[in-house]
């Protein structure tokens, strides 16, 4: 039940009001003058006070002032007598909520109380609302702080360097990762440096441009760009950079970039390449040693036979032994030639020559080996090929390697009943001279086809060095030519080489002889 304090010096009014207000359901407190009214107010804090204006001692205005001081929300209704309009106005100015004229009618009282109650109710509601609003704001703030702390932690604990900058590119976020990577402390960077200062100038321009991108097309981000940052010690550190321009209400207001340190990855990559190189070299050396041992065996055999022939005077054995020595010396010079070609850059020396003559020379050189290996070596030369500008050592060496390979492909073919054929074919093409070497030997599996031009790859065990095709390719590259091949296991292989060949000026086209 709501309390109400009635202050009036006239007992009749006090009684009247008490009856009337009690009837309306109020708990009524009565006071007969200002002083005791204030005392009663302090004691029971009623939300509504009804006070007479004109009282001996402390008057209604004074009471009003006092009470408003204690609790400005208290609704105070003043009772005014006839001709006390000025006092009534003063009371209202002092924030009395209402006034009732004497004689006090029940109707006037009800209206005044209703208004007071309404204001009180409104105030209470407002207070409640304000209080809960504060609570809500507090709650939201805490959530926001938690989210912020989480993000901050996320940024701080990230291993990657994270740098954010405002629209003037001044650093606003600089996490531990960035500090570790770049060697600056956060307090040295934030607000004092610009984001560009962490990159070498050329890189900075590019990265900023990429991050700023084209707002129209929405490409204002940079993803996994490999670049470098510049540390405090001016060290250029390889990093993977991702970054983006930040927008607020459609306007760019800064940028953020993530920097992943690639030093360890790069180091591992270098180590891997190095170990691959060492192992390739090891393989190459082992392969070469193996091959050389075979040659050495031939040389020792030849020498042994020559020595025996001299001791026992056997001219036949002498011839055989000596041929063996010569053959193996040939193999060694071939190997050394290939090694030299492989290890050195060489400027082609173009001279007028006849491509068919080159093929003929190779045919003559390989015929003996083919016969020994039960392989038929066939010539298919294009007679329309005229003299042209070529570096003859190139096609010569390449053809020699390819024909030797083709014969080996037949030797290694397990189909014993096959009639093996290796064909050397020449053809004139508009800007090229084409050489084909065709065999019907063992052919290549897909695995072998993939590795054909790899360093020191050989399918021939101790009979190969893995240098042949490598050298062939290198020569063709140097001379601006092309090499390709087709191969099927069990069917054979065709290698095709094209060398650019200008006809010699003095010779008319066609070359019909």
């Amino acid at each position, binding site marked *: 039940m709501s309390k109400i304090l009635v202050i009036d010096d006239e007992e009749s009014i006090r009684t009247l009001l008490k009856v009337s207000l009690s009837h309306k359901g109020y708990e009524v407190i009565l006071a007969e003058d200002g002083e005791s009214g204030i005392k009663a107010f302090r004691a029971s804090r009623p939300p509504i006070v009804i006070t007479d204006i004109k009282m001996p001692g402390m008057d209604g205005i004074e009471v009003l002032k006092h009470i408003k001081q204690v609790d400005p929300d208290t609704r105070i209704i003043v009772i005014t007598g006839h001709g006390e309009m000025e006092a009534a106005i003063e009371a209202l100015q002092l924030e009395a909520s209402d006034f009732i004229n004497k004689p006090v009618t029940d109707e006037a009282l009800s209206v005044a109380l209703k208004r007071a109650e309404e204001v009180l109710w409104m105030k209470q509601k407002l207070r409640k609302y304000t209080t809960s609003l504060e609570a809500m704001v507090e709650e939201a703030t805490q959530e926001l702080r938690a989210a912020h702390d989480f993000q901050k932690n996320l940024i701080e604990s990230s291993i990657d360097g994270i740098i954010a900058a405002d629209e003037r590119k001044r650093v606003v976020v600089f996490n531990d990762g960035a500090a570790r990577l770049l060697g600056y402390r956060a307090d040295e960077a934030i607000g004092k440096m610009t984001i560009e200062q962490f990159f070498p100038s050329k890189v900075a321009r590019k990265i900023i441009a990429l991050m700023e991108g084209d707002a129209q097309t929405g490409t204002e981000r940079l993803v996994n760009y490999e670049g470098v940052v510049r540390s405090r010690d001016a060290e250029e550190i390889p990093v993977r950079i991702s970054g983006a321009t930040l927008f607020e209400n459609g306007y760019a207001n800064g940028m953020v970039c993530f920097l992943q340190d690639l030093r360890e990855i790069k180091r591992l990559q270098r180590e891997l390449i190095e170990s691959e190189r060492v192992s390739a070299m090891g393989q190459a050396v082992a392969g070469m040693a*193996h091959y050389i*041992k*075979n040659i*050495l*065996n*031939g*040389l*020792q*055999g*030849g020498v*042994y*036979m020559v020595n*025996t022939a001299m001791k*026992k005077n056997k001219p036949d*054995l002498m011839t*055989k*032994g000596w041929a*063996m020595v010569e*053959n*193996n010396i040939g193999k060694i010079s071939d190997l050394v030639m290939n090694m030299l070609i492989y290890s050195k850059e060489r400027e082609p020396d173009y001279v007028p020559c006849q491509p068919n003559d080159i093929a003929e020379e190779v045919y003559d050189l390989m015929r003996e080996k083919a016969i*020994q290996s039960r392989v038929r070596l066939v010539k298919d030369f294009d007679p329309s090929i005229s003299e042209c500008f070529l570096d003859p050592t190139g096609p010569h060496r390449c053809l020699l390697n390819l024909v030797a390979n083709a014969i080996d492909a037949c*030797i*290694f*073919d*397990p189909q*014993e009943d096959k009639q093996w054929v290796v064909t050397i074919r020449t053809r004139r093409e508009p800007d090229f001279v084409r050489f084909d070497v065709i065999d019907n030997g063992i052919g290549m599996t897909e695995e072998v086809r993939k590795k054909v031009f790899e360093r020191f790859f050989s399918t021939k*065990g*101790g009979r190969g060095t893995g240098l042949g095709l490598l050298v062939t390719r290198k020569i063709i590259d140097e001379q601006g030519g092309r090499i390709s091949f087709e191969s099927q296991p069990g069917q054979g292989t065709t290698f095709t080489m094209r060398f650019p060949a200008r006809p010699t000026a003095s010779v008319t086209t066609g070359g019909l002889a």
Partner: protein
Amino acid sequence: MNKKILIVDDEPEQIDFASTILEENGYIPISATNGMDGMKMVRSEKPALILLDIMMPRQGGVGMYRELKQDEATKDIPVVIVTGVTRGGGFDEHMVTQGDELPAPDGYIEKPMNPDAVVKLIHDLLSGS
């Protein structure tokens, strides 16, 4: 005593070299350039010992060794493996014995061949049997 020694090798030079060594030391060299011909020779000529190039193309050496060791009539003929691969890697042994499926060969000769060592090995193997 049978002094015939069979050389099976696809490289004519190697056959010439080995034949000269054997001839000079009182043996009778006979030869074949592949495993199939080699087995024919073994059956017709019944050699006292075989020098076998294990690295012949098309598995020729390995196949012939298997055939020799699995046939009752030929499994006791001493076989010396001629190889260009440096021993110690276990590669040859594994290849020859097919991972212990076949008995180990009686000897190895590594290229380049040292004639004196070849002669001593053959002499030891033949006098021991």
